[in-house]
């Protein structure tokens, strides 16, 4: 997948993944896990390069939900990075976070909403906020690159201090049109 930021709004601040990474450092994220995704590629690279962040590639997104639970049991803050298509894979695993009132923070790059060319991405993209809400997860959005750091910081307080499960949906508009 191509992650080039050709969209105008992303060009205004192409460093929003760096802003998010800086917030990860401020709030002492100890583990990052992910299913590979173009929109998250820079954040994934930054996490892998950081010796203080244990970064785990997953075979499917629900693994990451369980990993975040284990990290918290062991005293670390973890974040799951995924794409909207992976949210449906997690639904039953969200029961773990809910039943144990475990903090949970996930950053979701959206597909199927802005200049989407692939019809197969649209159903899960459209269902993503509802899927989270069905399982009792708070949904926040980043619609403009300049607000990325602030939204992640606020969501982290809600999750790790408030013992809530929080999903941040990153607008497809930030990711730019996919070039073929």
């Amino acid at each position, binding site marked *: 997948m191509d992650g080039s930021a050709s969209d105008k709004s992303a060009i205004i601040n192409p460093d929003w993944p760096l802003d998010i990474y800086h917030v990860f450092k401020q709030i002492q994220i100890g583990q990052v896990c992910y299913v590979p995704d173009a929109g998250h590629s820079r954040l994934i690279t930054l996490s892998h390069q950081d010796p203080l962040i244990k970064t*785990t590639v997953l075979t499917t997104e*629900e693994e990451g939900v369980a990993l975040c639970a*284990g990290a918290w049991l062991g005293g670390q803050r973890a974040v799951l990075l995924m794409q909207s298509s992976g949210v449906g894979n997690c639904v*039953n695993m969200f029961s773990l976070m809910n039943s144990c009132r475990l903090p949970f923070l996930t950053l979701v790059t959206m597909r199927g909403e802005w200049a989407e060319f692939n019809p197969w991405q649209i159903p899960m993209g459209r269902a993503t906020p509802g899927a989270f809400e069905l399982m009792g997860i708070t949904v926040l959005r980043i619609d403009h690159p300049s607000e990325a750091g602030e939204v992640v910081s606020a969501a982290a307080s809600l999750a790790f201090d408030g013992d809530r499960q929080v999903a941040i949906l990153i607008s497809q508009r930030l990711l730019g049109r996919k070039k073929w």
Partner: protein
Amino acid sequence: MVKSSTFGALDRRAAVKALLDNRRDLLVVTGLGSPSYDVFAAGEHDGNFYLWGAMGGAAMVGLGLALAQPKRPVVVITGDGEQLMGVGALLTVAISKPANLTIAVLDNGHYGETGMQLSHSGHGARLDVIAQGAGFPSVTEISDLEGVAAFRDRMHDLTEGPRFACIQISKDNPERVLPPRDGVHVKNRFRQHLGFAVK
């Protein structure tokens, strides 16, 4: 290949009790169903985290915990059906290389909670071979209590993992003994055991 002639003979309660004997600083995550009952029956402990759901997630809970607590040995004790539902997690654990983590599968080839239907393992799939293919540096097949006793101390080795053990238990279904189902309570108790304040 159907393994029906080679199902295990080990009593699951005796096997788990032997595995957790003299557990010292071992942290334990259990897969839902009988493995949770087996671990609880072996002795209640603040360092136990029992799953009552999240099928397929036990190994990954163990991985997150093992990465967060690299100086503590961690064992995930789960069943063949639970591990099969999250079989991809074996690949994730193997490449993450947590040296302090053991995945111990109690393999009876059946789904004990739901009417003893054959699992893929019961149909002949080999979880130990899958773990080997995933890249676990240590894979052990255990079929008797001597094997459990020999494996027990290895779980405390913080350098050779991740380890995978397939423990061949019989399909006898002992009486249920139920660990606490309040996830918040078990979570808080577990974190307190590790020295984290409950908010």
